[in-house]
Each structure stands twice: as C-alpha cells, then as structure tokens.
C-alpha cells in the first residue's frame, strides 16, 4: 500500500481524529466528577479559611461549622432556585446591586456566630475574588482571604498572601463616614483602612472597589445584625424594624 497517496492520507487523518476525539471525550467524562469535587472542596476550604479554620477534610469541617447558607437579595434573605453554594459570583456581580442574589454563609465556631461573604471583582489583568468573614456584630472583620487569576507575581498577586490579608482582622466595614475598606498608600491605622501593595496599585484599588461593590446587597441585612447586637432588646422585635434602628445603632 502506498502510504503517501492522497487517499491514504485522508483516511489516516480522519481515522486518527475520530479515535483521538473518542479517547479524549471518554477521559474527560470519566474524570469530571473528580475534578468537580476538587473545585467544590477548594471553595469550601476557602470559606473555612476566612473564619480561621484549616484542615484536611474540608467536607466534614464545612458541615460541622457552616450552619446556614442564605441567599440574599437587596438586604433580605430570599428563596432562590439555585442553592446558595452554587451561585456563580461572576455572573451575579454583573447585575446591579438591587437585582443580585448572593450567598451568605453563617458559621458557628465555639458558640460564636460568624458571617462569610463572597467577593468578586476586577484586578489589573483579570478577575480577583475572596471571602470576608464578619464577627457576630455583622461589622467587625474576623478574617479575609483573596485570590486572583493572573495578577502580577510579586506585585498585585501579593493580595493572596498573609502580608496583605493579615491586615484585615479587626477592621470595620461600616461607619457613618464610609462603607467598606479603604486600601490606601502609607498610613493605614484607621479602623477602615489597610495598606495597599506598592507597585500593585490597580489591584489594590480593585480590592477596595470589590469590597464596597459586593457589600452593597448585604448592607441592610448586616446592619440589622449590627443593631441587634448593639441593642439586644431590639432582637425580639424582629428584623422588620431594621431600617429605622440601624441609624440609631450606628
């Protein structure tokens, strides 16, 4: 057989492509469950890390500590078709703050209630994301973790390191003067300030924008927690009275 004839070449190419396509689809389909599981576990350990819990078995720890998963829209918990854990933040933040349905994770660690909020925004080169955990008052930050896709190593990518993240615990999200966390240059001693990354200004500003943008849908909900924490008696009145009380509490 002449292996250099046109006919043979075409047949060879077609057979090869079909075989390879079949092989790759089989591999992709059979490995997909394992890969999805990895992505899910990573998300769970990210959420847990923001409340300071790290461990081998993210699955078990997640069930142990995360007691409630709510879907929040415009400051109130709503019923949603998608479960809180499955909400895709990338498409959620594309909507306006009022339309967004975003997840809120409630965690109970040694009797203390914490709230974990997912974040998603833009860095210099691509998306950045993270989780911020709040203490029981819905205002003080317990911990924050950030991730990024393609920020510059050594500059913007530093947001994913403890050097940057360790500044967040103890800071406050809401005061009368400002909502969110200001990522600034130099002195960052204020309650709502952290020191940005030198040479990573656009990523640092991206973090600041991301926090204030992602905070918006939760604001009313968190403030109702804040007021409940500040004036315990209000608790019995329920959440309906939240808007009037928040101003007083803050």
């Amino acid at each position, binding site marked *: 057989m002449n*292996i250099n004839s046109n006919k043979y070449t075409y047949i060879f190419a077609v057979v090869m492509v079909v075989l390879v396509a079949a092989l790759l689809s089989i591999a992709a389909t059979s490995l997909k469950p*394992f890969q999805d599981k990895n992505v899910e576990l990573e998300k769970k350990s990210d959420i847990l890390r923001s409340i300071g819990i790290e461990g081998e078995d993210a699955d078990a720890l997640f069930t142990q500590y995360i007691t409630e998963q709510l879907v929040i829209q415009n400051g109130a918990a709503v019923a949603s078709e998608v479960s809180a854990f499955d909400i895709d933040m990338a498409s959620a933040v594309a909507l306006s703050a009022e339309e967004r349905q975003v997840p809120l994770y409630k965690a109970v660690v040694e009797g203390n209630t914490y709230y974990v909020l997912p974040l998603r925004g833009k860095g210099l080169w691509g998306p950045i994301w993270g989780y911020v955990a709040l203490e029981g008052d819905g205002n003080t930050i317990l911990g924050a973790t950030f991730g990024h896709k393609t920020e510059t190593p050594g500059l913007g990518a530093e947001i994913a390191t403890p050097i940057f993240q360790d500044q967040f615990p103890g800071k406050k999200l809401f005061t009368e003067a400002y909502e969110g966390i200001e990522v600034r240059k130099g002195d960052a001693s204020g309650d709502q300030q952290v020191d940005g990354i030198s040479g990573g200004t656009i990523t640092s500003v991206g973090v600041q924008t991301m926090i204030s943008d992602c905070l918006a849908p939760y604001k009313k909900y968190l403030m109702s927690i804040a007021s409940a924490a500040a004036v315990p008696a209000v608790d019995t009145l329920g959440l309906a009275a939240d808007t009037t009380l928040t101003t007083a509490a803050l």
Partner: protein
Amino acid sequence: MSTEQKPAKEGLFSKKNRALLTDPLNSNNPITVQVLGICSALAITVKLKPAIVMSISVLVVTTMANLITSLMRNMIPNRIRIIVQLVVVATLVILVDQVLKAFVYDVSKQLSVFVGLIITNCIIMGRIEAFSLGNTPWKSVLDGLGNGAAYGGILIIVAFFRELLGNGTLLDYPVVDMLGLYDFGYKNNGMMLLPPMALIVVALIIWVQRAKTPSLIEKD
C-alpha cells in the same frame, strides 16, 4: 523509514541501548547541552513539588509519544507527519492535564498553563522527529525515558536550590528553620524566586557539567 536494516538480535540492554538511556543524562542533555525546554525550566522551578510533578508529566509524555509514534512509524503518511506528531503529543498532554486536575488539584493549579505548554516543549517534538520515527519501539521508549529523565533531573536540581535558598524549605518542609540558621541572622534570598535566577542556576549547572566533561567545550 523502511530502510532500516534488520540487525542481528540485540539484547534489550545492550551497550547501544544503554547509551540511549544515559547519553541524554550527560553528554547530550536536552537542557544543558541542546538548550531545549528552557522556558518551562524557568517557570515552574520555584518550588520542588510542582517541578517533580512537571518532570513526571514530561517523562510520561516523551516516553509515550515516542512509543506511539514509533509503533505507527510505517503507517504515518510523510506529508502530514508533523500534524500526526502534534496530535499524539497534544492528546497525551490533555490526558495528563485531566488526570492532574482530578487527582493532584493543588499542583495542577500551580502548574496552570505550563501543563498545556508541554505540547510545545521542543524536547518532545524533537525526539519524535529525530528518533522515534526511524527506530524500533523499544529503542524509542529508552530514548524517551532518557530524555524525559534528563529534563526532569535538571528541573529538580534547579527547583531544589531555588526553593531551599529562596524559601528556606524543601517540599514545604522548613529545613532552614529546623537547622536554626535564622538565629544566626540568615535570611532567605527572595531573588531566587524570580525567573532570572533559574537561568543563572541552569548556567551554573552547565558550567559544572562542562568543567567535568571537557569534550562538551566548543573549540572555536
């Protein structure tokens, strides 16, 4: 391709066959002598673990690609042989990538695009085109193993020094801390973590290798 002669029955590990395996490790090293595959050697040698996974991946791909192309060498139409080689390599790389994503997710994330870029690693295409298309499967496997191991060996040596000197750890194990060197004022050299230092480490390896093997020194 059909011109190869039937040699007298040769032992599996005859001297010639052993040379296929060992030559790339020294006198014909793909990185330090042929200067191939430098790009990935710079990118993923910051830490030892990704470097080891990368080495194993490349070893598997070169060996398998050599074996498969060698088995098909009398069937591949000459005019599309480069495409066929690419398809074989790409298929293997996608498989490796999928397996890494499924079973060593954290490392696969650190390697990110570089697993996909194994396809463009000149060592693999080079060995197929230069060797396995004209040699028997067994020889091709030995050649693939030799070249893959040679590439991986250099990667691991570079990563060893970069992680040890740059981070003070080995496989994330805090070696320098254990030795208590920090108490004497020792500091990690952050520059080791930057890509240019990989080039310098590779250059030092080339220097050492040529000093020991004078036959490699070019006479001009």
